[in-house]
């Protein structure tokens, strides 16, 4: 069964940015949008492994800092015409606390 880990408060992640959670599955980027939605993706761009967490967040997308691939946070897929996808992880926010599950999404 999926186990939820508390990783901090939503206030720890400024709007339109990301923070990293280090796990033994590698770094996971936790994004927060302007509308306070939270998404978790593996912090590795499908292009050349750039750290997505360091990119500019806009809408529900992030632009990779290395070569500007645009990644859709909701789907974990690159926005066309870019191609590629990245693992998503379940996250939830309860009473301003953020919880992450390490059960890798589809």
């Amino acid at each position, binding site marked *: 069964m999926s186990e939820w*880990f508390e*990783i901090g408060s939503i206030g720890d992640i400024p*709007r339109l940015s990301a923070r990293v*959670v280090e796990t033994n599955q590698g770094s996971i980027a936790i994004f927060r949008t302007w509308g306070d939605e939270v998404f978790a993706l593996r912090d590795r761009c499908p292009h050349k492994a750039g750290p997505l967490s360091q990119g500019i967040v806009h809408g529900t997308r992030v*632009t990779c*800092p290395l070569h500007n691939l645009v990644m859709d946070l909701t789907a974990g897929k690159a926005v066309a015409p870019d191609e590629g996808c990245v693992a998503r992880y379940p996250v939830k926010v309860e009473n301003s606390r953020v919880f992450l599950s390490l059960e890798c999404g589809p």
Partner: protein
Amino acid sequence: MKQKLVLVGNGMAGMRTLEELLAIAPDRYDITVFGAEPHGNYNRILLSPVLAGEKTLEDIMLNGEQWYADNGITLQKGKEVVKIDRCNRKVTASDGTAESYDRLLLATGADPIMIPVPGHDLEGVTTFRKIEDVNAMLEFSRNSRNAVVIGGGLLGLEAAYGLLRQGMYVTVVHLLDTLMERQLDSEAGTMLKRSLEESGIQFLMGAETESFTGKDRVEGVRFKGGLRIAADLVVMAVGIRPNIALAQQAGIYCERGILVNDTMQTYDPRIYAVGECVQHRNQTYGFVAPLFNQASVCANHLAELGYAKFHTTLSSAKLKVTGIDLFSAGDFIGDDTTEEVVMKDVSRGVYKKIVIKDNRIQGAILYGDAADGAWYFELLRDQTDIRDIRATLLVGQSHLGDSGHGGKNLAASMSDDKEVCGCNGVCKGDIVKAITTKGLFTLDEVRSHTKASSSCGSCTGLVEQIMAHTLGGDYSETPKLKPLCKCSDYTHDEIRQVIKVQRLTSYRAVMEYLEYRTLDGCHICRPALNYYVIAAWPGEALDDPQSRYINERVHANIQKDGTFSVIPRIWGGVTTPKELRAIAEAAEKYQVPTVKITGGQRIDLLGVKKEVLPHIWEDLNRAGMVSGFAYGKSLRTVKTCVGQEWCRFGTQDSTSMGVKLEKLTWGSWMPHKFKMAVSGCPRNCAEATVKDFGVVAVESGWELHVGGNAGVKVRPTELLCKVETEQEVVEYCCAFIQLYRENAHYLERTAPWIERVGLFYAKQQIVEDAGNRKALHDRFLDSQKYAQKDPWAERVRGEKDAHEFAPLKQLSSRHV
């Protein structure tokens, strides 16, 4: 229920409108398309290469039948609409197929003109417009010998070339004495005629056709005056006429074409029209670039966004005949108010003519060397003041050094596996494939699909050449005013203006005021807007860290492996044992993998982990060192030479001058990075003449040079002026920086900026107008009050962005 949209005319303009519409409003309409031709939509431009045997129908399909199915569009192919019933909002095709509409789009194109001389209906007399015409010509070319092309314009010559390639004897008949008289003057026309003759085409100039002879099939052409020549195939290419029959029948107001307003709407508000069938502000268009602009405007209104407008546009023309390099645009004849600059080199087969009025280009013809066509077209379109580049105007832009690329006809001869974009590792084959399989037309599309030319841009020219070659040498897209990005339609200048006038002090305020289409903008506009508000309202504007690129957010350069590099400021390149010791100690303490002397006279510590940054900064701060801003769109280095203090040739103290300028200007945010240098004499050891602002000392004072660049495109500086005192150097330097900060577009370095606005402008603002210079200088110093804070120290103290430098959480193996 969805609204119903019907498109009549399955060609280039109509289909482009649907593609644009689907991209912005995919679910708004149920769409039905009627096309008289029995195919999907193909690239009509490329019929010429099909005729020449260089391409097949499959190669030139833009929207195959599968595409319609995939997008849920009903295609009624091979069905000509013959009636529009506007009362009941219904169209009917000749076979009785009917469809009702809420909105109707007419894109019926144009018909080739057939001169009704006796015999024009004989077998073997054809026009050149559709794939069927091409197939018929190919069929004839297999069984017969003599082809006659009536019309020496673009289309006629492309037909003639194709038929020649198919092995026919080709004669081109032209009524006038100059070929392509709508694009060329007689000089260029004569040169063109000579090279086509050399390739085997014959010409009959000034000849008027009287009749075509033959019983069932054409056998000859007879001219006024009695001359008769043999012909097994006659191609009529004397022009086109907007196809307005259907619209006229339905009572929609037409003149030469179907009249539309700036939103592509006809007199019936439910009915739109685009393409060659349209007349807009008394003009009709016969090239795809303006038609595609119409398409995007029309899509904008069909999607009910309601803000785009079609502007009268200029077109340029090229001839798609292999081996002929030709370009023409605008008014290339001129009148008694214009002047012309001409270059003619018969033995090289090169002719260039540029028509100028009030220092602005009105038109141009290039023959034999058209590499700079796009550049002249841009100068023409933007009406750039060219007085500063007049002397070298005809030499063109390609004479400027270009690291790694260049060579004007490179694209054609390149093999597919040859790398074009060094930044993103994109080969020619990738680009060609993307263009042909995805139906790309514009540089932007090629950029986003392949990434070619999307980074440093030095291969842009080459990519454009490949596009031209693949698309058939002619697509020249360039809307007049380029929006900053896709999130709005406003240009850089419009946005800067609004920020000033409305006193907007945050990127969000700008986005709200201008009603941006996206919620948070994108990675292109956010950094630009953030800079614009800071530059306009120093001390007042809200600097949003989340709108800055990672390097500027954490004050270090991100590396390919996600680590960072640290470059402390070394004022004017002068350091001390104490500083060197501090750098060495920091490098050892934090196990920095690489320590490198940069090209900018300082030291780079590479491979530092993000968490370590505040610590290494703290140590460097302690030794009195501050951030070198090697990551910023800001002042980078001020290179100096040893100068008068040591050098036997030095005329002034260049080192101190460099340090002084750096102390004064560091920390300032700019449209792009900004580099300076001070050399102690004209031997110029600090390379001041390739800097954004370069100072060269001479016996009698200081020469001030601006707009240089040693990067992607090497451009030497131009002399702004000479001054005598140190105080003047400082004042001019600050004024120049401020002018750049207030005027340039974000990510535009001084070199392209100066080329755009002209050195003349900078001189006027800075050299000639002392009051203005002083004001610029004061504004700069004022903004520096808020800018000169060492970002490292602020972060070492934990005052700013602490969240950047620590992971949110470590989920150690104990947890997992």
